[in-house]
């Protein structure tokens, strides 16, 4: 998977690049609109992370450009503005998703994975990870070809974990993913624990393997 990160805040850009770079993912990055447009002219990307507020213009320009050239990249907008108008404008210009700052890198990765899956839907409906096999349209999970029943939240969490495999995901990130940012859950990490415990048990029963590792009270890691 080839990724283009367009973000003018250096610290954020570096963090994203570092988090995403792994086997099978190639990241390129730039901090302004002009370079980004040149890059998309020259290369093909699977997914573009696009900041709206750039020094030399709004990210929407790139979206229009992509639309006019008929490119088929997945685009995820990352913006400091939580504005419905911006969101609609971006989606109308062909963006696939809109993420408001601040966000957790795990959330960003899960969204990118979702975009990537949608783009690749034509070729495969099945997401495989070791013994786990997920039928995406049907939302069905099999482990070693044995179906297991997950609740909606557990299913969401499994996808989230697989997208962030090998990474430590903070409890904050998980909480926000599961409940959204509408609900202020300052003291609600217990619920995460309950969900993790359930999903862990279900996977363990089916695969005889502990996929989820707890990391010092800060979060969890999916292996």
């Amino acid at each position, binding site marked *: 998977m080839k990724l283009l990160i367009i973000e003018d*805040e250096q*610290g*954020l850009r570096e*963090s*994203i690049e*570092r*988090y995403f770079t792994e086997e099978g993912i190639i990241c390129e990055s730039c901090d302004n609109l002009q370079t980004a447009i040149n890059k998309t002219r020259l290369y093909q990307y699977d997914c573009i992370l696009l900041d709206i507020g750039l020094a030399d213009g709004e990210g929407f320009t790139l979206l229009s450009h992509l639309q006019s050239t008929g490119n088929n990249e997945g685009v995820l907008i990352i913006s*400091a*503005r*939580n504005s*419905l108008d911006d969101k609609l404008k971006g989606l109308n210009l062909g963006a696939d998703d809109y993420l*408001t*700052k*601040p*966000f*957790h*890198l*795990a959330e960003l990765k899960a969204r990118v994975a979702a975009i990537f899956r949608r783009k690749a839907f034509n070729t495969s409906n099945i997401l495989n990870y070791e013994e786990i096999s997920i039928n995406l349209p049907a939302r069905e999970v099999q482990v070693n070809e044995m179906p297991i029943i997950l609740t909606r939240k557990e299913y969401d969490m499994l996808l989230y974990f697989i997208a962030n495999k090998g*990474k*430590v995901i*903070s*409890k*904050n*990130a998980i909480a926000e993913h599961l*409940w959204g*940012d*509408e*609900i*202020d*859950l*300052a*003291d*609600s990490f*217990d*619920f995460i624990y*309950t969900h993790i415990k359930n999903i862990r048990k279900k996977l363990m029963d089916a695969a005889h393997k502990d996929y989820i590792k707890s*990391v*010092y*009270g*800060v*979060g969890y890691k999916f292996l």
Partner: protein
Amino acid sequence: MKLSAQYSKVNLIITISVLFIAGIIYYGTIDYIANNQLDRNLDEEIGEVADYVKINQRLPKQIDFDEDQTSFTKTDQKAIAKVFFDTVYRNPREKKPESGRAVTGLITLSGVNYKVIVIESKEATEYLIQLITLITLVLTALLLLILVIANRYILNGLWKPFYHILQQLKAFNIADATSIELSETKVDEFKELNDAVLSMSSRVNSDYQNLKTFTENASHEMMTPISVITSKLDTLIQDETLKFEQFNQINDIYAATNRLSRLNQSLLLLVKIENDLIQDSANLNLKDIITEKLHQFQELTQSKHIGVTHTLDDMEITASKYLIEILINNLFSNAIKHNIPYGTIRILLNDNKLIIQNTGENESLNEKEIFERFQKGKTSEGTGLGLTIVKNICSQYNFRLNYYFEKPLHSFQIDFV
């Protein structure tokens, strides 16, 4: 007391006293002129008497001086000054005393000195004075009446622009973008007042607008650094050589960053509501939204062993779904957050009100302060903006929001008026 009444009062007192003093002076002057005239007549009479005595060498008979009464008394005095004075005049025909004017003089006939007194009736002049006084009084009364009426109507008319300005000022709402509308006036003072009010209101409006823009920009600008912190933390925890202690500290930073981000989002939301920027109104079934939210919050209530009972009727409102969800979210999360283990939450929705009641601390909150910004319980981890947002959403849609405490339930009631 109204300005016009105050003015009328002063005006009336001054007018009456001036007219009163003028009346006295007027009376005195007429009286003086009339007396002068009489005195001149009397002087002539004395002259005539003297002439008569000189020519006829005898004292005249009373008959010769028609209305005037003349009396002669012998006197030893060698000289008598010509003195005019008021006295009583006896009208021979009507036999009743009238006020009269008299003069004394000295006449010498055949070596004998006589003191002459001539009395003239003042009846005619008195009558004149009375008539003049009456006319004056009537005119004065008329003048006063006209003044009072004029004051009332003209003054009220004159002050109309003032009351218009006052009304506009009373209705002035800083959060409202509608500017003050002032009526045309030809009076310089009111023109000046209009200008001052206009410039003041536009200055206040623009200051307020600037403040809101500033809040919005500041909050937006803060989102980027917060997202840098979050992303760095997310990266940091990947390092598994860190110790437990360090992870603990990272957790605290996560929590603080999370709060900062929420605070920012809440401030932005408040600005948006106040600026009336959220206008995706649609017909909503409140019952459906509440049912959905109850489902969402189920895990939270269950983990705290809170019993939730609800009576929900179908209820349609026209509002932004986004805002109504935030409203319900905030009220629900408060009801859960400030609840006690094994407590209760009661929800009642009918076609004119929504009541959310919960158990919690066993004393009333300060109903005046709880809706103010940054008012929160000592133990609350929240932003202190939740209820302010609820209040602002309610006032956006003209819902009435009230808090009351009836042991052991804290109640938030929204009346859909």
